[in-house]
């Protein structure tokens, strides 16, 4: 039984990593381009935004909440940043991040107040803000699109930078954020509080944890990351319209869940989430490399999500059974 418990807590990242390597290897076998430097750079660039958002959402989901508004926030931030840049040609890359981050924080504050302050169910609240923020983009944009020529060259060139020949700038940021968030969640009191709150909310109140503050700040952080991700969106696509990143929130949730963050909170790591995002993207890339059409790509994505949840459930049930058996033995 001890082995089951161990597997459940420590094995998640390792087994995901093995599946990831297996997927990359087998795709590379069929389509060798997939494992070249170009292929790797493509994979990492394509994963960066979802991975970034999934790390941002990790603390929220660990606390047994969710934030569905992120994709709308990405769209809103991307459009507003592009708009600022178009009106102020002197803008450079860091100003983009300031504006994007501020937009994200604003949405995060609203979500945080509603979920942590009024204790409304996060699923409904953020579904609401999903529509409100997207509606905001439609209204503000007034069907205006922006293209590369309106954006600061410093920003676009930053997006093209690679490190060590393999690591695109956006994914470097993912790795840095992953290390910081991973460390913070494991080694600081506020980080641990998140796990405790998600694991057993009533008990968190009883031991006097600051539930409001943690939840509120987690939403602000999640919103901030979504705002920043909007700038990464501009870097990658160099164009934006009011439907930017539409409907992608569920891809983020899927990456997080596949990466080991249970919807019931209390578990999961930043590393797992990034591997989850890579895995989703690898499989997408692999299917594209194999020439599978778009419908099947979406369907297989959904299938993967269900398999991940099912695997979790099976493990949980096996643990439960082992425990009951043990308790019965103790009682005799």
């Amino acid at each position, binding site marked *: *039984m*001890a082995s089951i*418990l161990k597997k*459940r*807590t420590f094995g998640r990242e390792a087994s995901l990593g093995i599946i990831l390597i297996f997927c990359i290897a087998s795709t590379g076998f069929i389509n060798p381009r997939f494992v070249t430097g170009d292929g790797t750079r493509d994979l990492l660039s394509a994963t960066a935004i979802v991975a970034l958002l999934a790390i941002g959402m990790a603390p929220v989901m660990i606390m047994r909440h969710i934030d569905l508004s992120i994709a709308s926030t990405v769209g809103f931030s991307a459009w507003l940043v592009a708009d600022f840049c178009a009106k102020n040609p002197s803008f450079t890359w860091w100003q983009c991040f300031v504006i994007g981050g501020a937009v994200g924080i604003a949405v995060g504050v609203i979500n945080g107040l509603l979920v942590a302050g009024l204790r409304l169910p996060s699923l409904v609240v953020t579904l609401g803000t999903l529509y409100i923020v997207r509606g905001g983009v439609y209204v503000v944009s007034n069907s205006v699109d922006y293209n590369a020529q309106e954006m600061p060259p410093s920003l676009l060139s930053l997006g093209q930078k690679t490190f060590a020949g393999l690591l695109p700038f956006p994914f470097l940021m993912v790795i840095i954020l992953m290390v910081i968030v991973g*460390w913070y969640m*494991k*080694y*600081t*009191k506020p980080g*641990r*509080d998140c*796990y*405790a709150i*998600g*694991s*057993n909310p*009533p*008990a*968190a*109140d*009883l*031991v*006097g*944890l600051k539930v409001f503050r943690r939840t509120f700040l987690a939403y602000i952080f999640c919103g901030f990351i979504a705002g920043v991700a909007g700038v990464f969106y501009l870097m990658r696509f160099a164009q934006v319209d009011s439907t930017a990143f539409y409907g992608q929130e569920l891809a983020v949730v899927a990456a997080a869940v596949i990466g080991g963050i249970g919807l019931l*909170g*209390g*578990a999961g790591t930043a590393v797992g989430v990034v591997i989850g995002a890579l895995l989703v993207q690898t499989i997408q890339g692999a299917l594209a490399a194999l020439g599978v059409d778009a419908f099947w790509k979406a369907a297989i994505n959904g299938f993967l999500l269900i398999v991940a949840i099912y695997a979790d459930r099976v493990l949980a049930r096996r*643990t439960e059974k*082992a*425990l*009951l058996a*043990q*308790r*019965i033995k*103790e*009682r*005799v």
Partner: protein
Amino acid sequence: MANKGDLLLEMKDVKKRFGGAIALRGTNLSVRAGEIHALLGENGAGKSTMLKILAGVHEHDAGTITFGGAPFISGSPQASIDQGIAVIYQEPSLFLDLSLAENVFVGRQPKKGLAIDWKEAEAQARKLFNELGVELDPKRQARGLSIADQQVVEIAKALSMNASIILMDEPTAALSASEVERLMTVMRNLRAANKAVIFVSHRLDEVFAISDFITVMRDGATVSEKAISNTDLQTVIKEMVGRELTELFPKTDHPIGDVVLEVNDLTNPAYFRNVSFTVRKGEIVALAGLVGSGRSEIARSIFGVDSYETGSVKINNKPLKKNSPITAIAEKIALVPEDRRQQGLFMVAGVNRNISMESFDRLKGRIFLNFKKERALTNQWRENLSIKYADQSDPVDRLSGGNQQKTVLAKWLATDPDLLIVDEPTRGIDVGTKAEVHKLIDKAAGEGKAILMISSELPEVLGMADRIIVMREGRQVTELSRKEATQENVIAAATTGKKGI
């Protein structure tokens, strides 16, 4: 650090009400350092409210509480923790996803520089576990610990907070004999370290084995505060029960007929073992015993919502399929569950829809529900049980507890069952309605239904039942006829497992 015998906690004339219900009407409690103090009383006497006030979950309305020589700061769990009060709830409130070390130090993790020092936390937790004399791996996840081990983790948490007083709400309720023994050793160690331990228990044999002082509560007031040497089992039981059977129980004698329910050697090892009994037509049989003694689980197994491992159930001399409520209902069994809000009713649905729920087949026209018939049925049961509501379609949420309970009863009585199982039929309803519910149960028996009643209220058991089966820790202790049963011998059997007193 307090010295042995120093007055640590004093509660004087503490009062608390929840809306209209008075939970505490003036209770006193004084506890000294280095003392194990038992807090006793029947269900609803106010013990849990007392503990929750000290835990900072509730705030008292009136009275004074002094703790460690200073006024007690009330109303916040954090404040109680800071003052040195640790509470171990009946259901341990651990974080199951986290390691044991982390559970011990949650919110107070030792740090090295900016980061939490996990090595140090684990070493300290291991030291605490060693002091408590149990072998637990601090790195292990809390999920899967037995209740007993979870309590040990909670106690370690209390020690790590340097609590001077540790409150335990029915700590032994879910423990096996050897685990109780271990817990008692831990409690004695705490006493030796000059901590005060307040514990609530219904197991009087344990209370007398370990405590130094006993406070008995009844109906929200303190009845007696005595050192263990100045009291004995009989006195304590008398003080707990207090009242004579003054409420009127309208039990009448009915002819008793054939066996309706026959339970044979029923076992579900996690909850109950080797349970055998019968219930006859026109007979009321009570399952008495403490909460957690396996009574509700037996009822649920008979009805098929839960399963059992070995044994058999026969209804009207026919074997009953196990784990199938649908079959049970078809065989005319009805179960009025313990928790009417969660299990007995659809709270947002109307009274009519709740009452007609199980009688749909009789009420439907060709395909759809016939509203006229439903209305007639609802009116009929409204009259029979005098249920009070403004409109038939009012959600049951709006009814009082007593009327809700009558609605559940109506739903099942409308199916004209052969066997009616009622689990805590009068929990949380007022005295007047209680008597009405009792009358209904008696009337149902008079109509030849077999009745199995589970109740934690002794007067109800003694007043209503033809026969009483006393359960303790999942086993049948004894069976008493209406004539043999007294408050004392039922309590003694339920709390000590001894048949006579």
